């Protein structure tokens, strides 16, 4: 065996919760591990044991491994070493740490997707605490936020994160790479309870169908029968034109998102705060989604310092019919939730309608009416949606009706 050196991970002054490994395979001399860790006193021994176990797993008996650790948790150290090993040895074996039980929850087609927090797929420090900010979804990103040379490393980090990091109930999403490269990502995702894949720069139903074939293949291999939901991202003029086709490509497509940076570039124009240049695309996308009975999700708002502008932006977005928005900073989550929340007068009206509906059902009446006005079923449905939303946002209590009836008397 010729001497070869591989490296993986991140290093540098600002790097935290990550590590950098250098692995050199040798012909003899056994395994030598060198460690420089800022948590050496507390975790040095555990780190060495982990390193030894991984090398043993891959049958490496002679090597020099250097671990520069900035407080990485085991699942990150493992991903980094596996990445280094795979640069030197051709193997499909995966070194998997435990899948934590807290990550066994599922997601539903119909659930709120107001906020989804983007996390760069090769930056572990942002992942550990992402869930505490309570976004509706977290997106581990393999696409634009990962440097081309780090794509393979990121696949392993994201896989291990899906298994071992608790996102506290947020929908577990991954943005895969653009078609067809993204097809290579999904074997690291589907077996590890990914809820939803975001498909960037989607331009037609054909891409979705190919992706689903691949997903089905992996599901079969691993005996998985829960669905993997899809959120194609429309980011080009062609994608906008094909929005309805994409929206109806599969029953697993539960939402379409719009990506305005790439879209405006494709138009040959500039993205502005007023967003007149993307008005057509956004309304077109919303219309396609509603026609397909799926959710329309807006682009991210990139000025993370300006919460008031974000608030305004969300109001416009909601007004157009969007039901969610991307976040690139945890502080945006609360503002987005508050802004998508129903207004007080909306809630009051919904209470009256839902109450009238319950009354009518209890009395066995076929027709719901409020005062002298008849209420159509879709209106009732929307009111119910508003009420359950208000409950989930803590705006009204689950026993709102008791209080409502008391006030009526």
């Amino acid at each position: 065996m010729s001497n070869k050196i591989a490296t993986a991970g991140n290093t540098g002054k600002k790097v935290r919760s990550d590590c950098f490994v250098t692995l050199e395979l040798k012909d003899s001399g056994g395994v030598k591990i060198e460690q420089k860790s800022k948590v050496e006193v507390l975790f040095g021994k555990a780190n060495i044991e982990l390193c030894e176990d991984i090398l043993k797993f891959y049958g490496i008996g002679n090597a020099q491994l250097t671990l520069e650790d900035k407080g990485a948790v085991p699942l990150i150290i493992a991903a980094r070493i596996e990445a280094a090993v795979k640069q030197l040895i051709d193997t499909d074996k995966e070194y998997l740490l435990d899948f934590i039980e807290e990550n066994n929850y599922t997601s539903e087609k119909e659930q709120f997707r107001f906020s989804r927090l983007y996390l760069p797929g090769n930056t572990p420090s942002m992942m550990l605490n992402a869930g505490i900010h309570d976004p509706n979804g977290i997106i581990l990103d393999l696409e634009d936020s990962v440097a081309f040379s780090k794509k393979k490393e990121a696949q392993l980090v994201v896989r291990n994160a899906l298994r071992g990091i608790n996102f506290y109930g947020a929908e577990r999403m991954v943005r895969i790479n653009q078609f067809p490269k993204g097809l290579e990502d999904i074997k690291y995702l589907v077996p590890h309870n990914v809820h939803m894949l975001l498909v960037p720069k989607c331009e037609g139903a054909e891409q979705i169908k190919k992706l689903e074939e691949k997903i089905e293949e992996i599901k079969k291999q691993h005996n998985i029968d829960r669905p993997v939901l899809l959120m194609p991202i429309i980011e080009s003029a062609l994608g906008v034109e094909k929005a309805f086709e994409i929206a109806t490509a599969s029953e697993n497509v539960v939402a379409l998102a719009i990506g305005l940076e790439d879209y405006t570039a494709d138009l040959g124009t500039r993205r502005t705060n007023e967003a007149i240049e993307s008005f057509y695309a956004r309304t077109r996308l919303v219309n396609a989604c509603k026609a397909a009975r799926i959710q329309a999700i807006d682009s991210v708002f990139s000025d993370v310092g300006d919460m008031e502008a974000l608030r305004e932006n969300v109001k416009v977005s909601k007004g157009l019919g969007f039901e969610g928005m991307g976040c690139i900073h945890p502080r945006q989550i609360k503002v987005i939730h508050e802004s998508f929340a129903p207004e007080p007068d909306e809630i009051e009206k919904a209470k009256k309608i839902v109450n009238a509906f319950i009354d009518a059902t209890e009395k066995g009446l076929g027709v719901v009416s409020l005062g002298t006005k008849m209420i159509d079923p879709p209106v009732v449905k929307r009111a119910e949606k508003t009420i359950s939303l208000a409950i989930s946002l803590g705006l009204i209590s689950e026993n709102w009706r008791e209080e409502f009836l008391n006030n009526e008397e």
Partner: protein
Amino acid sequence: MGQKYSNLVKNAVGRMVPTEVNGQKQVPFQGVGKYKPDARKYGPKIASYADFPEDGNKQVASLKEALVKAGLKDGMTISTHHHFRNGDLLANKIFDIAKELGVKNLRWVPSASFPCHEHLIQYLEDGTIHHIEGSMNGPLGRFASHGKMKGLGVLRSHGGRYQAIQDGDVQVDITVIGAGCADSFGNANGLFGPSASGLLGFALADSQYADKVIVVTDNMVPFPCSPWQIQGNYVDYTVLVDQVGIPEKIVSGTTQITKSPDRLLLAEMTAQFCLEAGIIRDGFSFQSGAGGTSLAVGDYFAKIMREKNIKARFARGGSNKYLVSMLEEGLVDYILDGQTFDLKGVQSMADNPNHVWTSPFTSYNYHGKGNFAGMVDVVILGATEVDVNFNANVVTHSDGLLLHGIGGWQNCLFSKTVILPIPLFRDRIPVVTDEVTTICGPGELIDVIVTERGIAINPKRKDLIEKLKDSNLPIKTIQELKEEAEKICGKPAKPELEDELVAVIKWVDGTIIDSVRKVKS
């Protein structure tokens, strides 16, 4: 100065502590409120008017001349203060002069030390300085942790420092007080001049009790220097120098609200807790420190107070621009300020009669007839570690290194509600642990731990548990928090420390609450 330490015994919190330190007898911690010495205060020497210039001009040509006249010699106790924080130029100069004069074995009693004092390590090595009694931050702490200091370090709180000087535990031979503004008689304040730092409260005890008092300024004004935060009647010599401090480092520190989303969340949860606990109500009082998270707590308090039309009677500082704007907006009636962290704070103290300067005597001294700390409704503090018994550590890290001072932290534990907002772990190091490395504050005084993954209320605070029982906040037990931290980080190994002690931690009453051990090199 006698033996470094001897005769270890177990104290009331189960820690082994020496009964003799640097040749002085010590009392082990006996429990909160248990130790009440029956004695008289230490008396300073009587001075005579006849020994001082009739015209009141006590100015001498240089700091060196002042130190020589004050009788600087081997084995003396020299005290300084941290009003200039990391911009302090005085402490280094004093020991440069001591070195030049060949004086040895000095005991340095700073009210706090900063990274700028790394310069003094050479004097700890060559025997100019025997040991430090005061906070040991950063480089000095690291030096002490490796057992390189000749004597044993003694760490005290701000209030404990006043107590120790007043009780005679620490008898200061010479104190050097740096002031932003002074007159030649020795009246001094921190309000004006290029090295303005706000107030000089930390030097109050030294001015009252030290044998010789030297005031040094770079801004000598004709008599009277008013207001006189330090009274010239205590002062022996005054010195004018080119520069006592580096202005931009005096008012630096962490005076910006954190931008970290995780810490902002902690602050928001803390404020929400206080609201739901009924602590934020008309006429309440609070204290929160100068760290980024504490500042953010203050900011969230302000938001809540504005929304609910609530006014606080007083806020205890560390003051800074955020607290000053609350005062100016009318959200608080008074700032009782112990330390000023930025120029806006200095300006406000000079201009606004409701921005009042305090000292460790009024705020913190445990051997006084009460103090302000206990009157504060809620105090927000930090910690390096907290254990499942709510004991907390502020001086050492989990690897055993001594890196921080106590500041006013211990004294603030007497507030009506003590809340520590801390991350559950820092770079894989759990903050909530089985047992803290060093006990600085006993768990019985610590009420609430707020982490990003849950809030633990001390079981002793049944009232708080009852008030928060229907809260949407994630209330958990401290044990649950510890387990959650270990689940994410792994269970940390116990650091292997040497048997040898390098420092002791004093409780506010002068007893020893814990010892700090040497780290393995």
